[in-house]
């Protein structure tokens, strides 16, 4: 804000409100938000630090660059599924069939490509198309018959699993060739070091550019704007953190392209959710669908779009996991894939109650889940123990979500 005694900025004329200025103010505002239950991604960061400390103390291999690279390879597939889950959770809905959907997509890709002899891109497109179609069905069941997504996707879970087994046939497993671009993408291909370092600079630079533009526009419109020091501090911190992380990973094999694809999807989804009318409508429908309807939003279409996105991303996750495992098998998408995808979204801070969340929660949440699973594997724990521990972490995440929600309600910010 400027010193001269002109009229106060439009949003600074109410004397009852404390306005936080500068870096100290930004920190104070952040602490206030957390105390009132608006915790956002704080639990994830705390969780990641905790997990890293514990596992690296027990087994130093956990922090080895190549192990972390492996972790990123593993995270991409389920991360994509989790990104779709974020969409349906935002509406207060759920899709329990994402695991089966990913398994089916992996089977479709394998069968069409290896058995039917279709070109690979066609096979992948067919798998994604099957995902979109399934999402359309869930959306229609909800819109037309008011069938709760909990039930429709639960029956979808079984039906899709059956279809997956059916099209795989009696052999049950199709191996994908190691030399194919798909499997190389899922197992080997990493970014060159110079490119990953360059990309690490982008977010900070973009942040400064966008914020400076925003500050100029707000000043022109007589609105207050965040101080330059806060913007520079945030961007600087982000850039340093990214460069350190990228450098460290480059000491191993480097950043997987598959993980890069996942991050690009998260960034695109984040833009769509926060900066477009569609995203605003998603949050509105999740917060109060009747209010959204009365504002002229086509609630049915929003629901369709969310379910279609979710199933399509689940299908993409299936294709990626086929690439990672170099096979389409009956086991694809079975076991803990469903749970991990939903848990990642919730752990990342997307509420199960709708209307609250972000695309980033898929990225952060899947890192937590994958770190736990990777760490436990390094400890040579059996999958029985892994399931129990992951289940416990999910329970804790949901408890944190509920407590934060209660705290928001008592602080009048529900």
């Amino acid at each position, binding site marked *: 804000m400027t010193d001269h005694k002109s009229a106060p900025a*439009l949003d600074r004329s109410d004397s*009852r409100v404390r306005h936080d200025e500068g870096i100290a103010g930004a920190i104070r505002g952040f602490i206030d938000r957390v105390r009132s239950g608006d915790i956002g991604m704080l639990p994830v960061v705390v969780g990641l630090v905790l997990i890293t400390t514990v596992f690296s103390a027990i087994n130093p291999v956990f922090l080895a660059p190549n192990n972390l690279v492996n972790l990123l390879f593993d995270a991409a597939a389920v991360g994509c599924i989790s990104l779709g889950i974020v969409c349906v959770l935002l509406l207060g809905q759920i899709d329990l069939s994402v695991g089966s959907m990913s398994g089916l997509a992996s089977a479709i890709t394998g069968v069409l490509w290896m058995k039917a002899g279709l070109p690979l891109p066609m096979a992948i497109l067919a798998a994604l198309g099957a995902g979109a179609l399934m999402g359309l069905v869930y959306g229609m069941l909800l819109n037309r018959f008011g069938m709760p997504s909990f039930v429709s996707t639960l029956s979808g879970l079984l039906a899709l699993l059956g279809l997956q087994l059916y099209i795989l046939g009696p052999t049950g497993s199709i191996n994908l060739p190691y030399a194919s671009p798909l499997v190389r993408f899922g197992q080997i291909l990493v970014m060159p070091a110079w490119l990953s370092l360059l990309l690490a600079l982008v977010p900070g630079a973009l942040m400064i550019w966008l914020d400076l533009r925003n500050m100029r526009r707000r000043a022109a419109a007589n609105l207050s704007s965040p101080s330059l020091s806060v913007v520079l501090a945030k961007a600087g911190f982000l850039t340093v953190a990214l460069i350190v992380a990228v450098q460290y990973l480059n000491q191993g094999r480097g950043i997987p392209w598959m993980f890069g694809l996942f991050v690009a999807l998260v960034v695109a989804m984040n833009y769509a959710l926060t900066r477009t009318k569609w995203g*605003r409508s998603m*949050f509105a429908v999740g917060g109060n669908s009747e209010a959204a309807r009365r*504002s002229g*939003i086509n609630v049915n279409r929003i629901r369709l779009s969310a379910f279609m996105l979710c199933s399509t991303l689940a299908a993409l996750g299936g294709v990626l996991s086929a690439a990672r495992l170099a096979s389409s098998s009956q086991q694809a998408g079975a076991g803990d894939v469903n749970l991990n995808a939903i848990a990642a979204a919730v752990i990342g801070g997307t509420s199960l109650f709708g209307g609250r969340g972000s695309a980033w929660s898929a990225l952060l949440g899947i890192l937590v889940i994958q770190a736990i699973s990777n760490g436990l594997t390094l400890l040579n724990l059996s999958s029985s123990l892994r399931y129990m521990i992951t289940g416990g972490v999910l329970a804790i995440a949901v408890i944190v979500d509920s407590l934060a929600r209660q705290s928001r*309600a008592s602080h*009048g910010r529900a």
Partner: protein
Amino acid sequence: MAMAEEPQRGEPILRLRGVSKQFGAVSALTDIALDVHAGEVVALVGDNGAGKSTLVKVLAGVHQPTGGTIEFMGAPVSLDSPGEALELGIATVFQDLALCENLDVVANLFLGHEISPWSLDEVQMEVRAWTLLKELAARIPSVREPIASLSGGQRQTVAIARSLLLDPKIIMLDEPTAALGVAQTAEVLNLIERVRDRGHGVILISHNMEDVRAVADRIVVLRLGRNNGVFTAETSNEELVAAITGASENSVSRRRARKLEEMDT
């Protein structure tokens, strides 16, 4: 909405004939007739269950009527969805306000009508929001707080501001003063007059006879889902109450008579 279409004062905007609405076996509205002209405040009064809110929801496109005709600006229309009613220029402040508590004030004001849908123009929306709220003399501390953190009166103001955003031809207010303090009630009544003076039609629903008398040009009484007379602000309270309850011999008149007797003795 082209400015050339602006209705002249006194010109009929909305004309309902024979409108009825049935929920299963229940007739919530039967054969309703209602006219609203430009620059006029029409109050809609009636007891609980008289069909006031149902009528508002029919006009807002939330419910579809089972019979009758609705004419808007001289042409018959069918209001199949809330979006269509908004497009025509019928804005509504619902009794439950219909705000999204998880979104901030700006997002709620522009919900469904965001500026530049592919890259939301937050700055322009925030400026419009402050200007609009200033016009209504609203006391909102920050437009970037979620609605959940606002008081009932502040939410009411936000809901009213939202209805004015699209510059509607007619605005319906369902119990706008029920949750408000003395000063805010006066502010809302001023606001209704300001909206009327701009040439908009206003439909006001209220249980508060004082508020109704203060601003209404005509008072339309509904009783058990039917029209039960049209009155003016000059009509006596007894007459109005009789129309609302359906008899001159009613609990209100009996109570008054008893009070008078007590005072006499």
